[in-house]
């Protein structure tokens, strides 16, 4: 029972995919009941309000009635109180007051209550007025004194009663009016109640029915929608499954697949495409198809061709991977259309032909390689067809014939030989026998040059096994021939050289034969004549025991030794291991005649020995002499000294003992004896020093002259404490010398300086260093009495003195000692002086530079 609305609904559903629409409907569904409910609520509220209002008025009327009852009762109370007063004669003042109060109170309340009703209000005012009049009357009653009855009272009473009745009448009016009002209100109230209920029920039913109807509609619509959606969902799932399946197929394909849009952009790719390009799907989709090829233009043309022709087959392209690797492919592509039949895009599949290409390349390479080999061959190579025509040549053939490949191919093979018939015979033999070896021919070059060759040729067959032609290689033997001739010439020359050598050269075999010997050998030792060496050289029957020559074979190393030949001459032999042309081991021996040299050497040796002996003898002599000298010195030291001591001693004693007896002259003589003794002692001392110097070993060390000089100066200070001496010591270097001896040198020089400056005040003694001709020279200069350069040669002589003993004491040995020491150091010492001006003594320790150049000590260092 599909209704129109159903159909509309269905149509809606058919077009309903829109969630907005759905939401709108849902809103509407809620809105309508809501509005209706609101309406109902409003009506009900209104009605209820009415009801309440009417009930309130009812209540109001009741209240008025109630209060008027009270009002009237209080009035009654007052009346009662007044009557009782009259009756009893006792004033019921309290009751009267209470009633009065009540009346007032109730009046106020009632007045308020009936404020809305003017009529009732008037009535009430009337009542109150009348009552007030009554009160006035009653009041007189209340002022009643006991036992006094007055006519005014009865008048009052009457008046009071009238008033009271009037009041009652008014009261009754009031009440009746109020009761009427009440009845009317009651009616209204009931009516209203009925209305309300009726309206409520009616509206509720109405709205309920409307809602029910509306809800039913909505539910129907919703359920339709739901079932439609369910159907769609099922359809979609089915679709998705189908598409997943087809997607998997695409992805599973090893061939890179792409879809290309009209504008050449990639719209979809499979995994294989991702792999072959090295880009992810996201990168690929939307980018230009051509970007991924080595020839983008060709790629573009490719897909354009598809768009035009509808398809393309085996279109060759090369895809470039991000890594740089290139894959060769063949594209197969077709267009695909949408439902309207319009072309949407191109679906392209690439077949990887790298393997195929690689195989092709390999084959190509191989064939290039083979060709290369053929071309590289120095031997002229040809292929000859059955009819004797050349079908292929290599470069060497071109060279040897002097003709280009084009000329050669297709021409007769035999044309290029000095003996064409022989050539023909040759290749016919190959066709017959299948091969030919070392077939001699001579090729003629266009220039006329002839090349001797040997041919080696074989047939070659096609895959079917039929003989296609002959493959021939020519070995150029002109060089070989020439080489052989040259070799012979060389050998001859070599032989000539050997023969002219002033040494003998012989080749020896391991079995003691001498297959070759040069002229020298033959002249000296004669021919071998096939005999072994020990036979023809020494006439022995066995090999020599001490033959060094054959050690070469043992050790495999060259030997050199001296030999005395059978002719008695000395030879310096050199033996070498040598290999014959065929590789067999030989010994090559060379011998130099050294007889004369040996003799000369012998003489030298003898002379040397003699010399050695002589030197030894001489040394022994010298040592003996030295020993004598030492003994002499020792004797001098001791034996000469002792008597000297005695002389001195006893002369002192004598002086002491004989002082009282001796006169001045005698004493003076004794004194002179003492002086002489002292002098002699000094001489002995000095002589001893000097001789010791000759014997002593020099122990050279690095020696600081500065400190040495300062020490000596210090040690001399006691001697000069009464004198004015100015020492000028400048930077002195380190020198290499014997420190003890150097000290002596300095001491002697300074002592001399002090001695000869004694007349000077102050004495100025300078010690320093000078450079003379680039060499450091130490000097000691004084401002003493000096000396004349006339006698400079005598200065250093032993016991030589240039001054008289009485002027200056001394033995004349000091300077000799200095000189001896300096000379022992290999140095030089000299002096300069001027009479009365002073003297300067110079020395340098080596004729060369001072060896140890230690850092200079600064002046005044400790």
């Amino acid at each position: 029972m599909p209704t129109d609305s159903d159909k509309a609904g269905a149509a809606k559903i058919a077009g309903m995919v829109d969630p907005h629409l759905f939401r709108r409907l849902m809103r509407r569904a809620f809105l309508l009941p809501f509005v209706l409910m609101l309406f109902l609520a409003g009506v009900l509220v209104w009605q209820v309000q009415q009801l309440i209002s009417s009930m309130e008025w009812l209540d109001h009327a009741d209240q008025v009635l109630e209060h008027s009852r009270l009002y009237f009762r209080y009035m009654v109370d007052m009346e009662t109180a007044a009557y009782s007063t009259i009756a009893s004669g006792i004033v019921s003042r309290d009751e009267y007051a209470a009633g009065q109060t009540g009346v007032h109170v109730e009046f106020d309340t009632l007045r308020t209550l009936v404020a809305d009703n003017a009529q009732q209000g008037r009535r009430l005012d009337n009542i109150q007025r009348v009552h007030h009049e009554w009160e006035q009357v009653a009041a007189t009653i209340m002022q009643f004194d006991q036992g006094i009855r007055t006519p005014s009272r009865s008048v009052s009473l009457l008046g009071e009663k009238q008033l009271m009745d009037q009041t009652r009448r008014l009261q009754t009016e009031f009440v009746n009016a109020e009761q009427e009002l009440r009845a009317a209100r009651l009616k209204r109230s009931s009516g209203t109640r009925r209305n309300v209920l009726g309206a409520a029920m009616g509206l509720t039913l109405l709205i309920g029915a409307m809602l029910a109807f509306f809800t039913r509609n909505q539910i129907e619509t919703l359920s339709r929608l739901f079932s439609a959606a369910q159907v769609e969902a099922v359809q979609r799932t089915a679709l998705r499954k189908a598409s997943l399946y087809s997607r998997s197929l695409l992805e599973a394909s090893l061939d890179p697949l792409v879809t290309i849009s009209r504008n050449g952009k990639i719209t979809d790719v499979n995994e294989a495409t991702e792999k072959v390009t090295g880009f992810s799907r996201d990168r690929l989709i939307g980018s230009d198809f051509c970007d991924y090829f080595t020839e983008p233009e060709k790629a573009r043309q490719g897909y354009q061709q598809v768009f035009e022709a509808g398809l393309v087959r085996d279109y060759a392209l090369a895809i470039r991977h991000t890594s740089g690797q290139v894959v060769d492919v063949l594209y197969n592509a077709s267009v695909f259309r949408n439902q309207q039949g319009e072309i949407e895009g191109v679906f392209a599949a690439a077949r990887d032909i790298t393997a195929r290409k690689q195989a092709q390349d390999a084959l190509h390479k191989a064939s290039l390689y083979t060709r290369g080999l053929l071309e590289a061959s120095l031997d002229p190579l040809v292929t000859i067809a059955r009819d004797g025509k050349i079908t292929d040549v290599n470069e060497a053939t071109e060279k040897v014939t002097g003709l280009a490949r084009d000329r050669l191919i297709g021409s007769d093979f035999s044309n290029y030989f000095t003996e064409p018939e022989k050539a023909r015979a040759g290749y016919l033999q190959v066709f017959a026998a299948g091969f030919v070896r070392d077939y001699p021919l001579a090729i003629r070059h266009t220039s006329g040059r002839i090349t001797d060759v040997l041919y080696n040729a074989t047939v070659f067959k096609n895959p079917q096994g039929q003989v296609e032609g002959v493959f021939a290689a020519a070995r150029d033997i002109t060089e070989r021939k020439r080489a052989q001739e040259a070799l012979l010439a060389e050998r001859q020359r070599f032989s000539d050289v050997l023969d002219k050598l002033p040494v003998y050269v012989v080749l020896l075999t391991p079995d003691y034969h001498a297959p070759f010997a040069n002229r020298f050998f033959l002249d000296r030792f004669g021919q071998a004549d096939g005999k072994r060496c020990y036979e023809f050289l020494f006439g022995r029957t066995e090999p020599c025991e001490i033959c060094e020559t054959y050690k070469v074979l043992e050790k495999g190393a060259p030997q050199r030794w001296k030999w005395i030949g059978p002719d008695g001459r000395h030879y310096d032999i050199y033996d070498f291991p040598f290999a014959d042309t065929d590789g067999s081991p030989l010994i090559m021996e060379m011998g130099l005649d050294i007889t004369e040299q040996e003799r000369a050497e012998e003489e030298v040796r003898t002379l040397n020995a003699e010399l050695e002996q002589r030197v030894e003898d001489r040394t022994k002599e010298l040592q003996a002499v030295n020993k004598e000298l030492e003994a002499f010195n020792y004797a001098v030291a001791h034996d000469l000294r002792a008597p000297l001591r005695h002389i001195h001693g006893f002369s002192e004693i004598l002086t002491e003992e004989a002082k009282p007896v001796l006169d001045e002259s005698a004493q003076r003589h004794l004194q002179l004896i003492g002086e002489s003794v002292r002098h002699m002692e000094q001489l002995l001392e000095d002589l001893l020093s000097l001789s010791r110097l000759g014997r002593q070993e020099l122990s050279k060390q690095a020696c600081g002259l500065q400190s040495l000089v300062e020490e000596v100066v210090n040690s001399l200070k006691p001697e000069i404490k009464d004198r004015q001496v100015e020492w000028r010591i400048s930077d002195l270097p380190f020198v290499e010398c014997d420190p003890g001896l150097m000290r002596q040198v300095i001491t002697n020089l300074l002592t001399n300086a002090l001695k000869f400056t004694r007349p000077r005040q102050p004495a100025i003694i300078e010690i320093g260093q000078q450079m003379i001709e680039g060499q450091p020279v130490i000097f000691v200069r004084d401002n003493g009495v000096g000396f004349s350069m006339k006698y400079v040669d005598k200065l250093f002589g032993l016991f030589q003195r240039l001054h008289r003993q009485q002027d200056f004491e001394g033995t004349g040995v000091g300077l000799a000692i200095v000189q001896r020491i300096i000379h022992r150091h290999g140095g030089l010492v000299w002096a300069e002086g001027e009479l009365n001006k002073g003297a300067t003594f110079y020395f340098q320790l080596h004729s060369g530079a001072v060896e140890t150049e230690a850092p200079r000590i600064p002046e005044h260092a400790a």
Partner: protein
Amino acid sequence: MKNVVEILLVEDNEKDIELALYALRSENLVNQIHVARDGEEALQFLAQREAELASNQSVLPKVILLDLKLPKVDGIQVLRQIKSSPVTKFIPVVVLTSSKEDEDMVNSYRLGVNSYLQKPVNFEQFCKMVKQLGLYWLVVNRLPTASAVQAENKVAVSQH
């Protein structure tokens, strides 16, 4: 006390002896000097004195002045003997020689000489030297008594 010898002088040359005695005389030591004219005599004297030790405690000389150039037994030999004997080794030996040889000095010290003096040629100096000698070795220097030495030697022997 007649046997007390303070100084044993070992010298062969008469003149040297005389000079030495003269020098010593000026120090008033001449009564207490015994002179041995060669090595043999010196050693004999010492042996004799050693034997007398038991009865007379102070018979050994306080110092021996030894010349090196002696006939028969050489000065060095004498020194060796003196310094190797258990009793006499405690006697100070002063070599008084004219030798300036290092060899003599080194040998002497090696053998334990207490002092080594070279006789100056100058007599005045010689006298001064002798005075100093006497003062030092006879007055200033302290020596162990013979009994003390003996006692120590006994102990040393037993400890061996």
